[in-house]
């Protein structure tokens, strides 16, 4: 694997990432999927490296996924949860970054409630930074794990029709997925009530639908998004009941999609609001647990690639072991 070329110092978003870089990550992830299914999952590739998960916004699954990924590769992983109340003065953000930087981590994995905050941190530190979700902006490892899930199930990404349904306006998952799927040659539609479609969405190159039956017609993939409970209080839509009636995924609405269309959801699900349990738990169609599994593999690949670059930069590859 010494000949892998990955031309990025950080993974801040899918934007700016070409098809080769995406394929490199996905290909490497495949090998880690196999590793993760073995009884002995521990590697030593990242022995001596330090990964710090800095979460300015609470998260269980993403943080756990990164933590497992780092530990399985042999890195020392530390989790830091920063109370939202402690960051209302922004100076603390860069101070936090500089403090962490002084501890010489190799990778910082950062989640932050404000768009652009992870990029800001990356400009202040010397190590690699992975964006674990920033505001409504991007969540690149989620898009990568979604792509890996699809690629393994369908065999390709190019030419597929993907419907992303729900609260696109406030979704970093949707933004990263739209960018990745377009880069890899898929076609993307979004299906949502007009109040949850971002401004000028069509300029992102997607087709916009406000009707599930139409929007799901003939699609290969149905990606549901989580409705954030805090949005339900505003005037974006009137009630959970009405939302589920028109925009929740159930067996009836799913009939419009291709018969073998896959159902995806980044989790955690609001059952009975954006997705009905019957389809969420349909073992033939739903790949939701598989997404979680792919998440660990993708994050292992990201940590691996970024620390290789660090190694290359320091011209010290004595501890580098082959990954595949």
């Amino acid at each position: 694997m010494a000949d892998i070329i990955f031309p990025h110092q950080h993974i801040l978003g899918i934007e700016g990432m070409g098809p080769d870089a995406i394929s490199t990550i996905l290909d490497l992830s495949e090998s880690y999927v196999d590793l993760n299914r073995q009884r002995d999952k521990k590697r030593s590739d990242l022995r001596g490296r330090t990964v710090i998960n800095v979460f300015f916004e609470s998260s269980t699954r993403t943080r756990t996924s990164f933590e497992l990924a780092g530990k399985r590769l042999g890195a020392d992983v530390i989790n830091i949860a920063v109370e939202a109340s402690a960051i209302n003065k922004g100076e603390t953000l860069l101070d936090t970054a500089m403090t962490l930087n002084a501890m010489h981590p190799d990778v910082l994995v950062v989640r932050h409630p404000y768009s652009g905050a992870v990029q800001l941190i990356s400009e202040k530190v010397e190590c690699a930074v992975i964006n674990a979700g920033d505001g409504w902006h991007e969540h690149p490892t989620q898009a990568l794990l979604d792509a890996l899930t699809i690629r393994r199930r369908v065999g390709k990404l190019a030419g597929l029709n993907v419907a992303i349904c729900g609260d696109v306006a406030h979704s970093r998952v949707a933004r990263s997925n739209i960018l990745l799927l377009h880069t890899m040659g898929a076609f993307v539609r979004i299906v949502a009530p007009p109040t949850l479609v971002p401004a000028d969405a069509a300029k992102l190159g997607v087709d916009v639908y406000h009707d599930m039956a139409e929007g799901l017609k003939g699609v290969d993939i149905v990606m549901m998004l989580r409705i954030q409970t805090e949005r339900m209080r505003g005037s974006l839509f009137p009630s959970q009941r009405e939302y589920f009636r028109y925009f929740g995924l159930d067996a009836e609405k799913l009939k419009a999609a291709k018969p073998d269309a896959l159902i995806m959801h980044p989790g955690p699900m609001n059952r009975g609001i954006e997705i009905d349990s019957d389809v969420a738990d349909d073992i033939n169609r739903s790949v939701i647990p598989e997404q979680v599994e792919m998440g660990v593999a993708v994050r292992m690949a990201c940590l691996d690639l970024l620390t290789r670059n660090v190694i290359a930069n320091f011209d010290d590859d004595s501890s580098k072991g082959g990954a595949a």
Partner: protein
Amino acid sequence: MRRAFVNARLLDPASGLDQKGGLLVLGESIADIGPHIRPGQLAPDIEWVDCHGHCLAPGLVDMRTQFREPGEEHKETLDSISRAAASGGITALVGLPNTRPVIDDVAVVEFVARRAREVKLVKIFVYGGVTKGLDGKQLVEMGLLREAGALAFTDGLHAVRNAQVMRNALSYAKAFGALIIQHPEDPDLADGGHMNEGELATRLGLAGIPTAAESVLLERDRRLVALTGGRYHAAHVSSAEGLAVIRRAKAQGLRMTADTAPPYFALNDLEVQGYRTFAKVSPPLRSEDDRLAVVEALQDGTIDVIASDHAPHDQESKRIPFAQAEPGMVGVETLLPLALELYHKGQLPLLDLLRKMTVAPAQLLGLPLGTLGIGKPADLVLFDLDRPWRLDVKGGVGKSKNAPYDGRPVQGQVRMTVVDGRIVYQVPEN
């Protein structure tokens, strides 16, 4: 003190004068002006300044700045803003009432006046709030504040949200002939937004503010001006839709005027790319179409005034995530060169451009400034119209450096600024 400025290109928008000649200052006032004032014709006791053919115009009157003193002296002080303004050719500044404490009371007006006398560089004026505490509820003592020196009334960065309060403000202000200045942005439509709504906001994942936030409030206010017959001024208008409302009001004969600031004709929302907090302003930078509409409105007179909209902020207010950053840019030092871009691009004749920064704001605010009339205060700016240079915000005079103009090539540079006959700024010799 008797001083003559000779070999100048005299520019006086108030009288339409654009002629080679000189200007004589006796004490604090302009004593004479015209082609007959030449070095050879001067009495020996008159000190003379050779203008080398550069432009001599009334000093600029900047009707929208934020002083930060009292209360936030780490961002700007009356001393630092005065020096910055003087270096930008500005001879009179008007500050918003959003100091700490806010200006809703005679005592704070008097405090600023006293500090201005101490600093004594450029002329310093203030607005009073429309409402106590700038919170949009109870009217300030407009009569008393006006007597103390408040030039007009505005809630500063906040719109007067309640239509009834606005109606009463416009109506009550008529008793004193006072002007109400509005930040025209509907607070509900703008709520939570950080930049112009559109493709870039969507890509960056930032909450957008639609241009309708501006036009909706202006449209409401247009009807309230019609209802009350009050005097209303819309600050920093940024969008085509908003300008259409002003245009309609003027066609109706309503007493509605407007200003804009350099960010709205020199930049567009793409400046925000990369989460540049220096490009965060309120109202937000708009689309290129809106920018062009602002230029057009400057040409057809829909926009009466260009103000700097100077909003100094320290690093701690800007080197943070975009959503948390304070809006605003510094602007007093860059007002003239950025405005001159409109002249150099052939978009606005020189006298029309200068009018919007001199006599137009002065008349709007009832100040006897902004002209080269005989007997008027000798507030002057001497500038080299064509000199090419690059803006250097970081190397500026003001305390804060928050503006995205560093390295921008411009043409036109201030050489000297004069207030009441005193030279308050002179370009360093190089």
